[in-house]
């Protein structure tokens, strides 16, 4: 076990844990943002530099600070490490630079993009970036590519986080063809992804994509995300666990995605049949509204659980009480 101090909060984690995961054990607003790290994907992380933190003291044995900011998602903790994230001016300053860097070639076509409203890059830029750009040169553009009939690739929006590459690697069980082609400025997601399209789980690249580079063609331009209502549901699926989130508009299921946790990570892959073919309410057993962070635009007009003082209302139905325990209501004030 290693004891580290993260932003002044002490936490004890097993050896080999990364700084990011140690911070996630603390939770709350001190957790560094992550654009490329994805817990279920082995080898992911270290690409986007969004999670840079300052290590003020390396360990108990060697308490010198690390000379540069380190990527918290790939740096393992050491006993006695002191890490600064929100407490460090330098980190916040560098993060502004990272946003600017990631947005250099990003088209900023959020009004058109289907990912808008649940886009990690949007959140990241909103929280950590500046509202102006200094970039005047031409942005690189690509023609949009259809990866099969169900998935669309907009390379223009890609930030090269490699998540889809690792996903493809994982679900294709090492039957790897290609990944990212080209280097540096010329890098782009290549044929490797197109080749996994026959796989039953290829749709998961849509869920892992932090931006709108890989999007669901069956949901293309159907509705903005914040006008749809997420509902957790499951079904007996022979291929996958069948735990999904349905996105409703009125009575229609417009989209099916995997269930994302608070860090936007899908823990259980879902198969393409669940994702693209089962778009009737009768196909699913509804569990209840999915939890949406209050800070998200999707929570606009999203009525989940009432804000109420449980002790005041004596005879709440049992099902509501159970729900309340699972998702505690919002605290006023």
């Amino acid at each position, binding site marked *: 076990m290693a004891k580290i101090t993260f932003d002044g909060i002490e936490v004890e984690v097993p050896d080999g844990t990364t700084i990011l995961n140690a911070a996630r054990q603390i939770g709350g607003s001190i957790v560094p943002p992550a654009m490329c790290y994805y817990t279920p994907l082995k080898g992911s992380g270290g690409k986007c530099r969004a999670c840079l933190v300052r290590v003020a003291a390396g360990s108990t044995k060697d308490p010198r600070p690390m000379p540069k900011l380190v990527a918290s998602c790939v740096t393992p903790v050491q006993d006695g490490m002191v890490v600064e994230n929100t407490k460090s001016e330098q980190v916040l300053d560098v993060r502004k630079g990272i946003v600017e860097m990631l947005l250099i070639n990003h088209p900023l*076509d*959020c*009004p*058109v993009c289907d990912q*808008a409203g649940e886009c990690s890059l949007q959140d990241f830029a909103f929280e950590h970036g500046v509202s102006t750009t200094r970039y005047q040169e031409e942005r690189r553009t690509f023609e949009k590519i259809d990866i099969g009939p169900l998935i669309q690739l907009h390379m223009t929006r890609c930030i090269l986080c490699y998540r889809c590459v690792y996903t493809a690697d994982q679900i294709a069980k090492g039957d790897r063809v290609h990944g990212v082609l080209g280097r540096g400025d010329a890098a782009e997601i290549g044929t490797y992804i197109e080749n996994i399209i026959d796989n039953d789980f290829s749709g998961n690249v849509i869920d892992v994509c932090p931006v709108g580079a890989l999007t669901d063609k069956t949901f*293309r*331009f*159907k*509705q*903005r995300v*914040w*006008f749809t209502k997420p509902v957790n549901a499951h079904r007996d699926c022979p291929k996958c666990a069948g735990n999904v989130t349905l996105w409703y508009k009125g009575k229609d299921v417009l989209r099916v995605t995997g269930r994302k946790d608070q860090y936007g990570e899908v823990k259980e892959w879902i198969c393409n049949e669940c994702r693209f073919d089962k778009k009737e309410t009768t196909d699913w057993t509804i569990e209840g509204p999915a939890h949406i962070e209050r800070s998200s*635009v999707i929570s*606009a*007009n999203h009525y989940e659980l009432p804000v109420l003082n449980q002790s005041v209302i004596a005879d709440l139905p049992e099902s509501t009480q159970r729900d309340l325990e699972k998702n505690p209501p919002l605290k006023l004030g």
Partner: protein
Amino acid sequence: MQPLTNRAKKLEKKPMTLAERAYLPAIFQGLSITMRHFFMKKATVRYPEEVRPFSPIFRGLHVLKRDEQGRERCTACGLCAVACPAEAITMVAGERKKGEEGLYREEKYAISYEVNMLRCIFCGLCEEACPKAAVYLQADKMAPPRFERDEFIYGKDRLVEPVDPTKRSVRGIQLTPEQAAALSNKMAQQPA
């Protein structure tokens, strides 16, 4: 009873003077006031034939703007609808097909865009939310009174401004004289 204020006047019954008893002077005084009002400026106007001058920042009827090449600016991003406190705006988005590049500015456009003028409170939040400078509340037009409810739901046929630069709304992004001339030329070349 205790008086509430010290302004109460004590009424005294005095006998009327000769002029008061003559009755006619008071009649003429009253009539002159009435006659004077015939020639005074009226407080009302004959709306809708006559309209009062609008304030330059008045927020009236919505308009969906076109850009300098006559293409629709709106890309159906839904930000106006989510910003709308009265939930008056609904839209359906569609994908621009090949050959429609002259009609719509972005690859996505609004197939239908409806504003319910009965719900709308003319707060102008949609105008503020719009990232494409597409929707504006005109300073010189109000939603006119109508008899039927469904006539207040304004679709794209009544919201999108005309292609003709001379008939466009004066609100929002304006064409430069050169752009307006270029657009007029383009329209003149096209067969009607």
